[in-house]
């Protein structure tokens, strides 16, 4: 392992807030009495239900699928009876068609679930099919179907796989614990993905504030060809895929481009560990590790939950609220999405459930921009956030486009650093949306 610490230009150093959960082993969640499984937990076409109300289902049984390529199937995470197929509020804020399954408490495993055996015994195409069938999507939050990411067009040559173990979002420790407790899953998953991509180089990039994870993964990959651990500076947004590619390889993904344009694929370690689990046990993506933490939850935990478990059930087994909650967030504090109810199911992308008390949840009162330039220094894309924000507020989206509003990655570094507490990324997001929709029309 090189002693050099890799990073990118710009970014911020928010407090880590990881102490609450970083040393807590992953705990199996109390089995839910029922689960609400959204038919769309990913970017792409929603699934059509494969079951009907009243059907008996088993754990790992495919219950939703789409014919579209950019989509990912969903599976039953408990065994029991399908009670409802109807819209339910999800973490995205809108109502999505969901399958509600009442658990019979038996957790009977479906016949299709069988250990796959050795990665070496499968061809590239077979591996991709297994990943697709397992309902794999990016588990870091964005939820892009993994098999699509692993099937670049013919004219793109991929030479590098990067496993994203940065976990740069404050509070979250799920990936950290996965690397500590399930390194063999990560390595198995990585081997599968390397084979699917036809690459022989895999970097596992981990922020240096997780020295134990670096050490454990180092041991896990020793003797495995082509895998290398890369220590990263602990800086936000180090885990953004374009930032991590830049830090690890020095390559710059062109504006508007994708990682494959520079020969890279980036996958979250949690995603890779789950792929590893698919090969080791045959179980598709029906469970995940999620960090339940924040100032208003009694007992913060890293929980291994079943997809579709309601937030309120998860929070309850963490001792409930320690005080009146101000915000419940799906994900981390920098890019996570606030929920307006705790009656939403955890999905494949629920890396954390953050519960802030009223004080921490307060939205600060903005004052005038003093042009200090801190947002410009913090922006990892080298934008001028104060300017785009001002233009967005003036509804001058044409001018905002000239300031590259569409290149914003919405990491929130500008809003975090702003001494005047201005809603920078909040307004830039608006400009970005306008610019992109205008481009689509053109």
């Amino acid at each position: 392992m090189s002693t050099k610490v890799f990073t990118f230009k710009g970014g911020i150093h928010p407090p880590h807030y990881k102490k609450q959960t970083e040393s807590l082993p992953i705990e199996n969640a109390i089995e839910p009495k029922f689960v609400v499984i959204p038919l769309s937990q990913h970017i792409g076409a929603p699934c059509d239900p494969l079951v009907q109300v009243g059907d008996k289902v088993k754990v790992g049984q495919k219950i939703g699928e789409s014919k579209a390529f950019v989509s990912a199937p969903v599976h039953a995470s408990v065994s029991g009876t399908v009670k409802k197929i109807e819209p339910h509020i999800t973490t995205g804020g809108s109502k999505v068609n969901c399958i509600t399954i009442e658990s019979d408490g038996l957790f009977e495993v479906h016949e299709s679930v069988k250990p796959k055996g050795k990665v070496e015994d499968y061809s590239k195409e077979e591996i991709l099919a297994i990943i697709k069938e397992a309902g794999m999507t990016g588990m870091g939050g964005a939820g892009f179907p993994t098999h699509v990411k692993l099937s670049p067009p013919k004219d793109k040559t991929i030479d590098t796989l990067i496993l994203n173990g940065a976990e740069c979002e404050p509070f979250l420790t799920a990936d950290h614990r996965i690397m500590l407790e399930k390194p063999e899953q990560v390595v198995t998953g990585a081997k599968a993905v390397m084979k699917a991509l036809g690459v022989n180089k895999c970097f596992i990039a981990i922020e240096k504030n997780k020295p134990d994870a670096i050490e454990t993964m180092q041991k896990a990959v020793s003797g495995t060809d082509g895998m290398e651990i890369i220590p990263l500076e602990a800086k936000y947004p180090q885990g953004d895929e374009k930032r991590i590619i830049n830090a690890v390889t020095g390559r710059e993904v062109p504006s508007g481009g994708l990682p494959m344009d520079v020969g890279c694929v980036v996958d979250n370690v949690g995603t890779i560990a789950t792929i590893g689990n698919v090969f080791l046990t045959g179980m598709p993506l029906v469970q995940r590790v999620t960090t339940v933490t924040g100032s208003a939850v009694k007992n913060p935990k890293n929980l291994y939950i079943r997809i579709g478990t309601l937030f309120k059930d998860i929070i309850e087994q963490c001792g409930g609220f320690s005080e009146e909650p101000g915000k419940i967030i799906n994900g981390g504090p920098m890019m996570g999405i606030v929920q307006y109810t705790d009656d939403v199911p955890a999905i494949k992308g629920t890396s954390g459930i953050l519960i802030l008390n009223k004080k921490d949840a307060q939205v600060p009162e903005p004052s005038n921009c003093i042009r200090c330039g801190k947002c410009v220094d913090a922006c990892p894309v080298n934008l001028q956030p104060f300017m785009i924000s001002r233009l967005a507020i003036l509804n001058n989206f044409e001018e905002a486009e000239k300031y590259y509003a569409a290149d914003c990655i919405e990491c929130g570094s500008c809003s975090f650093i702003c001494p005047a507490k201005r809603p920078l990324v909040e307004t830039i997001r608006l400009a970005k949306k306008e610019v992109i929709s205008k481009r689509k029309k053109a």
Partner: protein
Amino acid sequence: MEIKLIGSSSPHIRSEQTTHKIMLDVLIGLLPALAASVFYFGFNSLVLVVLSVVSAVVTEYVLQVIMKKDVAIADLSAVVTGVLVAFNIPSTAPWWIAVMGSVFAIAIAKQIFGGIGFNFMNPALVGRAFLMASWPVHMTTGFIDPITDAVTAATPLAILKGVEGEALQLPSLMDMLLGRMPGSLGETSAILLIIGGVYLIYRGVIKWIIPVVYIGTVAVLAMFVDGPSMVLYHIFGGGLILGAFFMATDYVTCPITDKGKIIYAAGCGALTMLIRSVGGYPEGVSYSILLMNILTPLIDKYVSPKLFGGAKK
């Protein structure tokens, strides 16, 4: 359970930094030089600073109330302006000079344009320019020479310029470094101003670029204009250190990008030497900064950071 949740767009955490804390740091950075001023020029320095600060804050408060805006005096920016106006006048100036300067700075240069963040020139320097134009005698002759306690117009730069005839001696370099020389209230103690400036850089309030490039440009040009032996007189003899660390670095009126800051600071340095060597005044720091303030929007328009993943322009 019925729960009431707060909805907002991410991010959900913010840094501890505030405008108030930044301004407080600037005030801390100015304190050593104020102490030196009281030590060398007497108690009147403190009186003028207090008067200036009080008038700046009261003006800001009254105008914000009249204009039905949120009263934002707690951000301390008016306090900073008040201190800087006082730093730019002679220590024997009558009390109303300080008051007039601050009122003009806050009312005309800052609040009329929309308050903090919207002024296109440094308010304190506008205040100073107003005083220079209105009461030039008060502004250029009331300097105390701490060595003789005489009131004089002969600042080192005035002597360099030959305004007072050849008979006058330049102060020693050590005296200039410490601030034992005639000059405006807060500009003379180079060493304490540098300590204050380094504190601001250490705290991340300002970057090193503007002071270093500004002073560096003056140094290089001074070498050509007056020879190597005069370089340190140009650096320590007038308001350059105060201007370079505390006035040219004003966020609102200097360019945002690092490259823009370099252009701006080099421009400040060149204009300062131009005024000092061929202009009508012995000192040119404040006018150079004001002129470069006016160019700042133009610099910002043409100098933008290179987009990540964007083609090189």
